[in-house]
């Protein structure tokens, strides 16, 4: 455990400094593909058979430690139901990473995922790192989307790709790690324009308070 509270880790106290970077990550995809389940598995190590459908969006954070950097994810888990579609841009704009999720047992959700990728490529930040997750891989017996098909699509579009299972935890941490590795963490890229915010003292990410 490298940090107790994000931001304090880089107090200049002579100890070897760890960079702390904060990234905004958004999850997109059809309803019921398992976005919330993936996040819950990643953040809390839990899985609920009866996960409630998300309303609006959910916000969670999780920190991962790479060799020389600590990456803090601010995760926005959007609601997949169609009627919330129009809210999505608010959440993916300014995001440095996105996970587009589909359900390998449902061909339609794969089509929907492709549309999300297209929308991100058009509207989101040009440097956004996009990962494609074929979730529910534990249900391979009912598979409708071929691994090769999705892999080929991901290759064409320069996406990270993994088949995951929130239920068995397969590849869940891995996909977040892969994203963390791919994100630009150099000093120069640390600016708001290209990468995550480099945290300085006193810049602890407490929520700004426009409503209070």
């Amino acid at each position, binding site marked *: 455990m*490298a940090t107790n509270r994000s931001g304090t880790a880089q107090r200049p106290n002579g100890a070897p400094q760890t960079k702390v970077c904060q990234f905004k990550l958004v999850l997109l995809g059809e309803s019921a593909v398992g976005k919330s389940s993936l996040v819950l598995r990643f953040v809390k190590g839990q899985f609920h058979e009866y996960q409630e459908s998300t309303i609006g969006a959910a916000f969670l954070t999780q920190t991962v430690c790479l060799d020389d950097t600590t990456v803090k994810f601010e995760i926005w888990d959007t609601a997949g139901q169609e*009627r919330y579609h129009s809210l999505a*841009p608010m959440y993916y*704009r300014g995001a440095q990473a996105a996970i587009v999720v589909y359900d390998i047992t449902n061909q339609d959700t794969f089509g929907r995922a492709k549309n999300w990728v297209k929308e991100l490529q058009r509207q989101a930040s040009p440097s956004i790192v996009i990962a494609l997750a074929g979730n529910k891989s534990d249900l391979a017996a009912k598979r409708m989307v071929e691994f090769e098909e999705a892999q080929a699509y991901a290759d064409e579009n320069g996406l990270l790709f993994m088949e995951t299972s929130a239920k068995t935890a397969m590849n869940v941490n891995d996909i977040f790690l892969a994203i963390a590795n791919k994100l630009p963490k150099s000093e120069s890229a640390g600016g708001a324009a290209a990468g995550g915010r480099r945290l300085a003292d006193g810049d602890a990410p407490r929520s700004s*308070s426009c409503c209070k």
Partner: protein
Amino acid sequence: MAASSEDQILEGFLCPICKADLKSASQLTSHFESLHQEEQDVLKSLKEIFGKAKKIILNDDTDLKETFDKALKFNSQDQEYYCEEQSVGVSRSSTDYFRAVRSARLERYATETNKLLIRLDKLVCNMPTDQNLRKQHEQIIVPWLDGTLVKLCPNCAKTFNITRRKHHCRLCGSLLCHDCSVFLDLNVARSIVDPSVSNTSTEPDQENLEKNGLRLCEHCYNLIELRKQVQESRNAKTVLVTAYEQMRSLMEQARPAVAMYEKMCQSLFDGETTYHLGDVNAMRGKIGKLAEGIDLLSKQIVNFSAEPGTRQARLQTAIRQAAALYIKEDLLSLRKLPTEAQIEEVRRQRYERAERQIQLERRRMEAEVARQPPAEPPEPPEPRAPAAGDDDNNPLLEQMNIIRGYIKEARRELKFEEVAILETNLKELKKEYQLLKLSKS
């Protein structure tokens, strides 16, 4: 690898900048627009998308907002209050106390009501019509209180005298004056004790009611009336169920309509003349109407107030989703109609093909005839064939016109199955008529 995480999960219509929960999509949008103006580019793209999705938002989210506000007893004025942090003090659960009080009350009502119901049942079954016998019957079941010493009506405290006589409640036997009596119609009483006999008789006038109905005290009447209401509400279909059944029935109608539409459409593409473009358009309109109806009803269902997160709320949402999907996939994905010009073209091609076929046939016939000259003189014209002059009242023509009338009618009523049959019929008649003419000439 994974390290510290903050424990709380926020969920709702969260502002991506300040993480305030705005309770509805529209409030979130306006909050975002008014307080986070600095993110101009974000806003611009957002506006674009909102323009496109305005309709969805307006339709769906106002409902959603209402449900939310209602459920959370919230409105925008309370917003500030909500944002203030408030710590919970000492708390104690009063649920058990509440339960105890409630069950005691329920018990009292239930036993009392049941007692009255049993009496009511005995009273109305085998009730003699003769007034004196009836009085006896009533008193055997519920003994009347001896009122000789009672001077005042226990209910209104007015003195009993010659004009204010003593009466008895038929269910509890207590004393009361006429003014304090309530009357229960016997038919209503029967339907209460036996719900299988529905009370269909018309309501009696006051005079009849007082003459034939059961005289009750207010207390007994209220308990019985309450029971009746519970019974009725249990049997009554809720608005929700009614809306659902109506929606199902529309779906039931839509299925054959779509099948018919597909058939008609195919027929047009095949160049057949059975249906007109107008017919198929009318059918499309009919399906559109059905879709509209289904949409409306399913919206009513989803808007029906239910605590968010409960099974009912989920079920309502699921119904709406299924309906929307059904409309989108089955009703609005109808095949596009060909244009007049396309139809013309297909028909022309078909006609030409037929024409060529006929030419070919004719030439072959001629060749045949030429090869074997007739052995016998040509037959005289058939005696029953009509003469060329009276073509107008040819029964075949007449029949054809009648059928044309039928077709018009069926078309007006959108009965396209019938149109198809009649059109075939008409075609056969035409063919026969042509043969007839050929044989004449």
